[in-house]
C-alpha cells in the first residue's frame, strides 16, 4: 500500500518538475536575451541604418533590417491572405458532400506546414533562378509567402469551422448563392482573420532560412521590390558571427528587438483568440 502511494508521489513530482522545466525554458530564453541585449540597446539601434564602420563597431543601427523584415513579413502576409482566404472558403463551402476530398486537402496543408523553411528557401531560390530574379525584396516575399500559406489556411479553416452551420443554412435558404453565404461567414469570422494575420506575420518575421537565399542583404532600406532587403533575423545571425565585441553585442540587442516584436504579436494573437471564443455563438 505504502509503495503505491510513494510511486504516485514520485511520478507526480516528476510531472511538476517537467512542467517547471518546460515553462521555465521560456523565461530562461527571454531572460538570457534581455540580460545580454539590454546593455547594448539604445535609440540609435532603432532609428539609424548601419553607418560607415558599423561592422567594426562604429555608429549605426539596424533600422534597415527592421524595415526590411516588416516589408517582407507584411508583403508575404498580404499575398498569403489573398490566396488563403479563397482556399479556406473553398474547402469549407464549395466541397459539400466530398468529405474525403476536403479532409485530404486539410492534411496536405498540414504536411505543407511541416515542410521546413530551408526547403521553402531552396525552392524559392529555384523559382527566382527560373524567372531570372536576383536576391531581392520580391524574392524574399515570394519564398516567405509560400511559407505562410499553410499557416494561414490552417488557422482560417479552424475559424470557419466554428461558424454554426445554421448561419450558413439560413443564408442559403434565403436564396443566397454560396459566394454570398461566404461573405456572411467572412464577416462573422473577422477577429479570426486578424488572429491568422498575426500568426502568419509572427512566423514570417522570425524566419531566417527562407530569406537566406532569397532576400539578400543590404545596409540600405529597400525602395523598390527589386532591391535586396536586410532582415532582422539575418542581421542577428551576421552580427553574432563577428569577432568584434561591440558588433556581437549589437547582435544581442537586435535579438532583443526581434524577441519583443514577436512576443507582442503572439500576445495580441492570444488575446484576440480569447475574445473570439468568448463571443462565439
Amino acid at each position: 500500500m505504502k509503495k503505491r502511494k510513494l510511486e504516485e508521489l514520485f511520478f507526480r513530482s516528476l510531472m511538476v518538475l517537467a512542467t517547471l522545466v518546460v515553462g521555465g525554458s521560456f523565461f530562461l530564453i527571454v531572460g538570457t536575451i534581455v540580460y545580454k541585449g539590454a546593455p547594448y540597446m539604445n535609440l540609435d539601434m532603432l532609428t539609424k541604418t548601419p553607418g560607415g564602420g558599423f561592422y567594426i563597431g562604429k555608429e549605426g543601427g539596424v533600422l534597415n533590417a527592421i524595415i526590411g523584415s516588416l516589408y517582407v513579413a507584411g508583403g508575404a502576409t498580404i499575398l498569403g491572405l489573398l490566396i488563403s482566404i479563397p482556399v479556406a472558403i473553398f474547402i469549407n463551402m464549395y466541397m459539400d458532400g466530398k468529405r474525403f476530398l476536403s479532409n485530404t486537402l486539410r492534411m496536405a496543408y498540414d504536411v505543407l506546414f511541416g515542410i521546413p523553411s530551408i526547403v521553402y528557401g531552396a525552392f524559392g531560390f529555384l523559382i527566382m533562378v527560373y524567372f531570372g530574379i536576383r536576391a531581392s525584396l520580391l524574392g524574399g516575399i515570394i519564398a516567405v509567402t509560400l511559407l505562410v500559406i499553410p499557416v494561414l489556411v490552417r488557422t482560417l479553416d479552424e475559424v470557419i469551422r466554428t461558424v454554426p452551420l445554421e448561419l450558413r443554412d439560413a443564408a442559403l435558404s434565403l436564396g443566397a448563392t454560396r459566394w454570398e453565404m461566404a461573405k456572411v461567414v467572412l464577416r462573422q469570422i473577422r477577429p479570426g482573420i486578424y488572429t491568422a494575420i498575426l500568426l502568419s506575420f509572427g512566423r514570417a518575421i522570425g524566419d531566417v532560412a527562407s530569406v537566406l537565399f532569397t532576400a539578400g542583404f543590404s545596409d540600405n532600406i529597400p525602395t523598390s521590390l527589386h532591391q535586396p532587403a536586410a532582415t532582422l533575423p539575418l542581421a542577428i545571425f551576421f552580427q553574432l558571427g563577428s569577432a568584434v565585441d561591440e558588433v556581437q553585442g549589437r547582435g544581442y540587442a537586435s535579438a532583443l528587438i526581434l524577441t519583443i516584436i514577436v512576443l507582442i504579436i503572439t500576445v495580441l494573437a492570444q488575446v484576440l483568440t480569447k475574445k473570439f471564443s468568448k463571443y462565439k455563438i
Partner: protein
Amino acid sequence: MRLIKDKILSKLMLVLTVASVSLLLVIGIGLYYKSIPLLQKLSWGELITSSVWKPLKGLFGFYPFIMGTLWVTGIAIIIALPLSLFTSLYIVEYAPARVKKLLTPFVNLLSGIPPVIFGVWGVLFIIPLIQKFIAPHFVEFSTGYSVLAGGIVLAVMIFPLIVSILSEVLRTIPQELKDASLSLGATKWETIKKIVLRKALPGIVAATVLAISRAFGETIAVLMVCGNNAVVPHSVFDTGYPLPALIANNYGDMMSIPLYDSALMFAALLLFIIILLFNIISRVILTRLENRLAA
C-alpha cells in the same frame, strides 16, 4: 448574374486551392530536377553512404551530414519526449484549472519565439554551460559547440509542438475508462500508466514522429551551435554538421563550384522526402484518432 459570379469565383478558388496544394508536388519535382546533374554522376547509394565531402574535387558524400542530423535529432527527442509527456500529463490530468490557464499561454509564447533567438540563446547559455560545467566531467576539452548543444536547443524548440499535440491526444481518452480504473482502487498514476498511456500510444507515436520531422528540418538554431564540421560525430561532445546547416552555410559559393548547387538541392530534396514521409505518417495516425473520437 449572381449565379455566374458564384460560378466564376468557385472556379477561381478551385484554381488557387489546386495551385497551392500542388506546391507539395512542385517542390519535390523542382528539387529533383535540380539534383539530376549530381545523380547522373553518382548514384543514390554512393551519395548517402560516402563520407568524403570535397566539393572542389567533385566528391559529395552526405553520410557525415545525415549522421549529424540523426545525432542532433536523436538527442533532442530523448530530452524532449519524456519532459513533454510528463508536462502534458500534468496539464491534462493533475493541474488545477488555475494552473492550466497560466501554463497554456507560456507554451504558446514559447512556440512563437523565432528559431534565430533559440540559436542566440544556445550560443549565450547552452554553449558555455556545456563547455564549463558538463563537458569537463566527460572529455578533456570541448568548445561547447557540439551535437549535444544542438540537441538541447532543438529539444526546447520542439517542447511546444509535442506538448500541444500530446495534450490534445490525452484529452481524447474517455473519462469513463479512467473512472472505471479509479473506482477499482487504482491510484491516479496507476490509471495513467495502465489505461491512459496505453490508450494514447498511437497519439504519442504520432507526436514523436511529427517532432522528429520538425527537428530534422530546423536550420538556423543548429547551425549556430553545432560547430559544423563535416565529420561523423562519435560522441555527444563532438561537433556535427546537420543537413539543413549545410544548405544554409554554403549558399554563397554554390554557384562558383560545379555541381555544388546540384548537391545542395539534393540535400534539400533528401530533407523534403524524409520530412514528407514522416509528416504523412503522423497525420494519418492523428486523423484516425480524431475520427475514432468523432464516431
